[in-house]
């Protein structure tokens, strides 16, 4: 009929299989979207605090090394870049170490979840729990395509869809049905599959031991809601190497913070700014070059705002700078708190004496991380970001006043000496990281195991058939 005519106005060149992980196959049917998505490999744009360049965060701010002492992030942490790099970057990061084969390495398979359209394929083939089980290295040969079409689209009609169970389960936990959302909400929710805070729950009844991916939204999405969630289940991501505090890591709560801002309040969705319409040869399509909107102000902002692009960029930078100013203060306080806590232990403090202090450190750093980790938050929701940072400073200071009193009681009544942490290297040395060994292991992995993974994947994919559409050849 006429309508299906409309639906299929594009002449499909191939029939795309459910969970087809290879973007270039989809690209045959949708060349414009595909071509533009390839541009996420462009790393030339840099903004005040974002952009697509590889930015070594530990080098830009070595204090982070202290904050994450004892945790993988102190080894290596970069500001996210384009989707095209998701696989390459997880191969390269020192956080995943240098596994020598199946069952080896520091990270679980769950780490793959947000990196590739091979994930829905695998989950479909193996089951969800099975996917999350085992080591990161166990699935290295299976997950090779960087973030792509199958992560967000239904191949049958190109409608947006949710392919990650964690988001569906998080909606369930909040008593919401994700199938009831509007089309416009979907234009943010496809992003919320990945740009969200998460943790690995190893205590799910029936799945004990499996690091099951969970978004901690049961009480809500604010910094306090998630904190109470973690406190209630006495979860911690790691124990801090210096202060011994039971820490939480906030990973990119992008969607959560975004929902508290005025753009979300007015119905603006992620895709409006990060995937605006684009015109090429008189045709409009959704720009799949997902990037900083500041590299594309005319399409991303000026649809709704008449101001000059320099002014709009200045607006963004101003909000980021204001957040940055106080976040940096908070960071300084946290570094001191960790070192002061260490000093207390060194001077013989008891667990009883330290208990309340460590809880404060946990809560203060959680607030700091929540405000920092999503990178976009200080523009997405500047007022909420500032509130969270302000609250963090209050808690950090509680800790430090208690620390000053305890230090005095332990016979030490002066500012502690600060180590030299002026560079990433010095800071890493201070916390006792042997980066050279880590680097050597990674190099070995890239020389031996990684090529095997890629070869194996190539073989497997060669076996997939991609059906040409009969009518397409007419």
């Amino acid at each position, binding site marked *: 009929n006429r309508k299906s005519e409309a639906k299929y106005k594009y002449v499909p060149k191939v029939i795309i299989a459910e969970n087809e992980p290879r973007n270039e196959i989809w690209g045959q049917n949708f060349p414009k979207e595909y071509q533009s998505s390839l541009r996420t490999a462009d790393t030339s744009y840099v903004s005040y605090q974002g952009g697509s360049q590889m930015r070594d965060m530990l080098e830009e701010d070595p204090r982070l090394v202290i904050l994450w002492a004892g945790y993988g992030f102190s080894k290596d942490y970069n500001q996210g870049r384009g989707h095209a790099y998701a696989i390459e970057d997880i191969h390269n990061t020192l956080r995943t170490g240098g596994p020598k084969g199946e069952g080896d390495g520091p990270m679980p398979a769950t780490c793959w979840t947000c990196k590739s359209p091979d994930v829905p394929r695998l989950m479909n083939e193996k089951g969800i729990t099975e996917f999350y089980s085992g080591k990161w290295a166990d699935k290295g040969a299976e997950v090779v395509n960087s973030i792509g079409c199958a992560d967000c689209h239904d191949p049958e009609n190109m409608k947006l869809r949710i392919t990650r169970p964690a988001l569906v389960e998080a909606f369930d936990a909040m008593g919401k049905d994700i199938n009831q959302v509007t089309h416009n909400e979907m234009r943010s929710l496809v992003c919320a599959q990945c740009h969200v805070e998460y943790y690995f729950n190893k205590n799910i009844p029936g799945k004990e031991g499996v690091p099951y991916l969970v978004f901690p939204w049961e009480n809500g999405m604010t910094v306090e809601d998630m904190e109470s969630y973690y406190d209630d289940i006495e979860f911690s991501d790691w124990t801090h190497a210096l202060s011994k505090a039971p820490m939480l890591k906030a990973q990119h709560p992008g969607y959560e913070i975004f929902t508290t801002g005025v753009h979300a309040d007015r119905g603006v969705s992620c895709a409006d700014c990060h995937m605006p*319409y684009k015109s090429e040869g008189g045709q409009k399509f959704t720009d799949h070059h997902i990037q900083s909107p500041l590299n594309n102000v005319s399409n991303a902002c000026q649809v709704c705002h008449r101001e000059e692009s320099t002014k709009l960029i200045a607006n963004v930078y101003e909000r980021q700078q204001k957040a940055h100013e106080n976040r940096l203060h908070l960071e300084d306080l946290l570094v001191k708190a960790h070192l002061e806590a260490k000093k207390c232990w060194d001077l013989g403090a008891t667990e009883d004496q330290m208990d309340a202090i460590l809880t404060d450190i946990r809560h203060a750093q959680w607030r700091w991380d929540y405000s920092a980790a999503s990178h976009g938050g200080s523009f997405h929701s500047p007022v909420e970001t500032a509130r969270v940072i302000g609250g963090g400073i209050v808690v950090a200071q509680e800790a430090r006043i208690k620390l000053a009193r305890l230090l005095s009681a332990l016979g030490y009544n002066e500012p502690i000496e600060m180590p030299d942490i002026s560079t990433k290297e010095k800071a890493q040395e201070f916390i006792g990281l042997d980066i050279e060994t880590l680097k050597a292991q990674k190099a070995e992995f890239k020389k031996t195991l990684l090529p095997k993974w890629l070869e194996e994947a190539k073989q497997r994919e060669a076996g997939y058939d991609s059906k040409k559409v009969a009518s397409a050849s007419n």
Partner: protein
Amino acid sequence: MKLRRLKILPPKGSIWRERAVFFLAVIIGMTHFLARESRITSYMTDDPQACVNCHVMTPVYNSWMHSSHREWANCNDCHVPHDNIVNKYYFKAKDGLYHASVFTARAEPDVIEIKEASQKVVQENCIRCHVQQVTQVKYDGWLEDHNENRTGRQCWSCHRTVPHGKVHGLSSIQYNIAPLPTDSNDNVVPAWLTEAIEEK
């Protein structure tokens, strides 16, 4: 049977009887089909999805969907008079019948252009919503030079991208993919995943 009593059908046994049953079924079926296909009821609402029922409306739907007005103004807010209710439905019916007949006759042009009558309606509607911004001397400071500029021209001669963008025409949007009224019942979670989640 109802049909029988109405004696519409030829006598039993007649070869025509069978054929008549067949054609009647076709007619009833077709009507039903057409009504459903064109989602007749949806034309009475302000839901933009009503318009997107016709594929020729997909480009304008999609451009509106990506415009600053998406959250504020639906099609009828601009394209139907809002001065009084009679006028609103009269215009709607007239316009709707016209579109439908063009469409049914497969006479739709590649580049649809807004008719003069429609232009008047739209201009009135721009002003209806933005009346204070465009007529109050007060906002001269906020909207520099607007006062002199706005008079005597159509708003979209300057605001060219409001709301359909600069490029028009049936082929201006490549794949014409847009959510249809029926889509809202579809799930956004693929069946295999729903199953897998329930399984656990």
